[in-house]
């Protein structure tokens, strides 16, 4: 299979899987689940199969369609996209195993629809990862927004529909209202929207317009949840937990920060932006989001909402690291995408397991739950430590690089933000961990429960292990990121 075929397969496989799920569901639910798992496995094989070629310095590309001359749908594999695709496709397998346990254990309705739109969302994520130009990226970005709407509104009651409205409203408003004009503007001044190492905008645009365009992009990519465009993320928590875990901790939100990183590196160019004074605000916006979201997270009583605000803060780490505009910080940004993905998906998996086993959603209910669900809470603890950035977890590695980059640039605002936010992270995660392990249950639960279904425990154990593995064996990830930096700086 040539690389071109593999790229195409990465897009088409989940869609074929969606069709297969629809057909298989008419025969039996087990077959449907089997199709999901098989599709996820096949996708991972295809995507990971692209790695060796990429490491060898190849940049396979593929042109899908030419809408009109000059505007085309084109795909191109580069290190950052590869990282994102490998992450999303790999975690989709684990998440599918988890989903099966969650959806069945929770006796959710309309499971077929759930799996179909999940597969479509993954296809969109692959499209974003491999997008070769802005138009392609925007196309799949919007498909991702729309295909996750049925997942967020899954429950269908009035409250869910209202939250789903916020979700769709914010994401579409930002993308059509800000991102689209920014994209057209880019094509208008540069004549192209191709992602080229070193950027395409240098010399095409100058003065305050740079800052304005950057602003349109950064706030237009609502998925990155830079304040004040963050409201959709807490709203999305009404979705079933597997959606929150893979999509709203990994695929969708990472698609957001990934888009911003890609725009900064491949459209503006790091050097060009570093020399432009009007782009400096981005760092402050990201730093503000980190601190503000962490403070808000401190006050949350609902576990999933707390995790959502923590995600908002962690996403801005990536944006802030990118905005430092130094090689080590860019590596830190990319590593943080991986580290946060492993850590946060573990946390969400744990939250979902607690919900399925004990029907508990609020922090105060978690007293002493560690003794009933030791595996789940161990994983939760590892995830929380990674969020704080304590070794031996992946979160430490990324924070290390971001700090190194900040020192490289003598950027004391970034350093101060990271320190403050680490303290805040510890302040809202450690009490939960403490409560779960060392407090006594205030009231005995209505139902004497143990761990969640096996498939869920398996999934969260694997992701917790990955969180630690990222600390111990991060060579391949960093190698990939060095390629990213070499190509651009």
């Amino acid at each position, binding site marked *: 299979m040539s690389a071109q075929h593999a790229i195409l397969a990465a897009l088409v496989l989940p869609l074929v899987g969606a069709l297969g799920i629809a057909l298989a569901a008419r025969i*039996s*639910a087990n077959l449907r689940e089997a199709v999901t798992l098989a599709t996820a496995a096949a996708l991972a094989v295809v995507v990971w199969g692209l790695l060796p070629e990429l490491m060898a310095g190849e940049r396979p590309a593929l042109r899908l369609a030419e809408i009109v001359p000059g*505007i085309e749908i084109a795909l191109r594999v580069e290190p950052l996209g590869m990282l994102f695709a490998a992450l999303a496709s790999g975690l989709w397998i684990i998440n599918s195993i988890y989903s099966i346990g969650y959806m*069945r254990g929770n006796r959710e309705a309309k499971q077929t629809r759930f799996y179909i739109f999940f597969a479509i969302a993954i296809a969109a994520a692959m499209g974003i990862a491999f997008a070769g130009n802005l138009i392609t990226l925007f196309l799949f970005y919007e498909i991702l927004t729309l295909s996750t709407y049925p997942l967020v509104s899954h429950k269908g009651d009035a409250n869910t529909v209202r939250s789903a409205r916020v979700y*769709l409203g914010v994401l*579409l408003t930002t993308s*059509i209202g800000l991102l689209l004009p920014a994209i057209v503007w880019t094509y208008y001044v540069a004549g192209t929207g191709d992602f080229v190492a070193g950027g395409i905008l240098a010399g095409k645009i100058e003065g305050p317009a740079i800052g304005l365009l950057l602003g349109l992009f950064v706030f237009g990519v609502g998925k990155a949840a830079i304040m004040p465009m963050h409201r959709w993320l807490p709203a999305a928590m009404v979705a079933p937990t597997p959606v929150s875990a893979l999509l709203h901790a990994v695929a969708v939100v990472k698609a957001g920060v990934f888009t911003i990183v890609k725009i900064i590196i491949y459209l503006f160019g790091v050097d060009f932006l570093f020399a432009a004074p009007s782009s400096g605000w981005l760092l402050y916006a990201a730093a503000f989001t980190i601190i503000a979201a962490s403070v808000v997270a401190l006050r949350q009583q609902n576990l999933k909402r707390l995790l959502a605000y923590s995600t908002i803060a962690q996403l801005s780490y990536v944006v802030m690291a990118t905005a430092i505009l130094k090689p080590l910080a860019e590596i830190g940004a990319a590593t943080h995408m991986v580290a946060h993905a492993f850590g946060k998906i573990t946390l969400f998996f744990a939250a979902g397991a607690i919900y399925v086993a004990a029907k508990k959603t609020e922090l105060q209910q978690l007293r002493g739950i560690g003794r009933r669900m030791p595996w789940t809470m161990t994983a939760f603890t590892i995830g929380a430590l990674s969020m704080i950035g304590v070794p031996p977890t992946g979160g430490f590695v990324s924070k290390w690089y971001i700090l190194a980059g900040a020192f490289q640039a003598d950027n004391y605002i970034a350093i101060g933000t990271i320190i403050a936010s680490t303290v805040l992270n510890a302040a809202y995660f450690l009490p939960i961990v403490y409560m779960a392990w060392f407090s006594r249950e205030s009231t005995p639960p209505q139902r004497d429960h143990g761990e969640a279904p096996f498939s869920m425990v398996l999934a969260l154990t694997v992701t917790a292990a990955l969180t630690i593995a990222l600390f111990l064996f991060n060579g391949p990830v960093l190698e990939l990121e060095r390629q990213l930096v070499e190509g651009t700086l």
Partner: protein
Amino acid sequence: MIEFNHHLPALQVVVPLLSAPLVMLLRPAGLAWAATTAASVCAFAIAVALTLGVLAGHEYSYQMGNWPAPYGIELGVDAFTALVLLVVTGASTLALLAGRTSVDAEIEQPRQPLFYTAWLLALAGLVGMPVSADAFNIFVFMEISSLASYILISGGADRRALPAVFKYLVMGTIGATCYLIGIGLIYLMTGTLNLADMELRIHEVADKRPTLVAAGFITVGLALKAAVFPLHVWLPNAYTYAPNAVTVFLAACATKVALYLLLRFDFFVFQPNLDGHAVQFAYFLMPLAVLAILVGSGVALFERNLKRLLAYSSVAQIGYILLGASLVSLAGLGAGILHIFNHALAKGALFLAVACLASRCAGVRFEDIAGVAQRMPWTMGAFVLAGLSLIGVPGTAGFISKWYLISAALGEGVIGGLLVAVIVVSSLMAVVYIWRVVETAYFGMDSAAAAGPGESAAGVESATGVESATGVESAAEFESAAKVESAAKVESPAKVESNENTNSSGAIKSIGKVDGAAGAAVPGEAPAMLLAVTWAAALANLYFGLQSYLPVALSSSAAESLLRYVP
């Protein structure tokens, strides 16, 4: 063969015009429908042939009865004409193919041949206007199409159509009269009615004032016909109370033809001759276009009748077309003309989906369509797709228009920035009004299903099925159990089928079944033919969103020919 191709512009009008009296004589109604559809398909084929010819670089000019141009009547087809012809004949053909059942439901059998006759006359008038290169001939076709559309709109069972059509008639007549006055003034000054000749002769006339007045009359008259804000007041009710098939037909193309004439006159005839006409045109129409966009979308936000909602959205979309034109630049004009095509695609598909809904619901007000997606998943799927195109989501035809409009506006400096904001804000309003429909249809309480005894019984059964099922396999068990139980209790298993497979291919099977089980408690999917055409139109939105060569080539070529006099 070349000889035959040469006659295509004439045949484009002649085929529907001469089929009309023939159809009047045909009985039964089915035969009349078949003949009308055949004529419309023929007309569409001719339009396609003309388009291919134009794309190959051919310009058609046809002398009626071989009388040379300034004296005889000339017909002409260039890229702009071809684009409008495609839209008109395409809309008519789709509406006819889809509309059989909906016409049957709304118009009693004996009157159908007359209805179809009026349809063909309207079609003949609507294609006659663009192909005519003669100002008075245009007026004749305008009257033919207007009178026929009044009949079409008031042809349905809904009596509210009568006051609506009366308003349309009065305003339409005023518009046509304004146009005629303008033509009369020019004829007085130049002694010619041929557009090309007119353009040359006006140049020679020393006193420009009558021409200026004529330009005003013609612009306002055509703006009225085109429902340009604030002359749009006839449009919403006319679209709302017309039979559904007629709405599909007229909404996609009637106003577009008037816009075509407006641009043709202002750019082709007046622009080269009147100093500062471009500026006057822009200053007069740009504010109206902006108001149309904002007010049209704004009213649509609060509308609770689906057809009225889409009609107000049309007012806004006409604003887009005009906004592009009022930039008086190649890019702007091209974007506006492109939107004629793309909006017809989106709005045609949307009104087709509405026709599907109307065929199975008590009405198309929000309360009638609440929760309807459960039993009509395919219809709502097409509606969402076409709605996304209207919003301008990438991958759809609407996106291409938005792209070119925003690009064109960016070329205009500060005003351009404001126009981009207007376009964007209105797109967001479109998100809101489309999504209100989607939420109602997908998450609302289905009154029909609640009322239907069969459906509610199945609902209760399945609900208890969920509660009582134990074990991890509950989903599979529940699905099969619900099927068995409801099959025993309810006569039509197809209902449950379509209820469960809201999103999947399973519904294909249920379409056929529902038709067979008509008369059961709750109606399911729309008639197969109607649905198939709706989906074809919806998919066309995707196709032209990903392969936009044809409309873009036509519209940019049209813009170039309209602006060839502007330095």
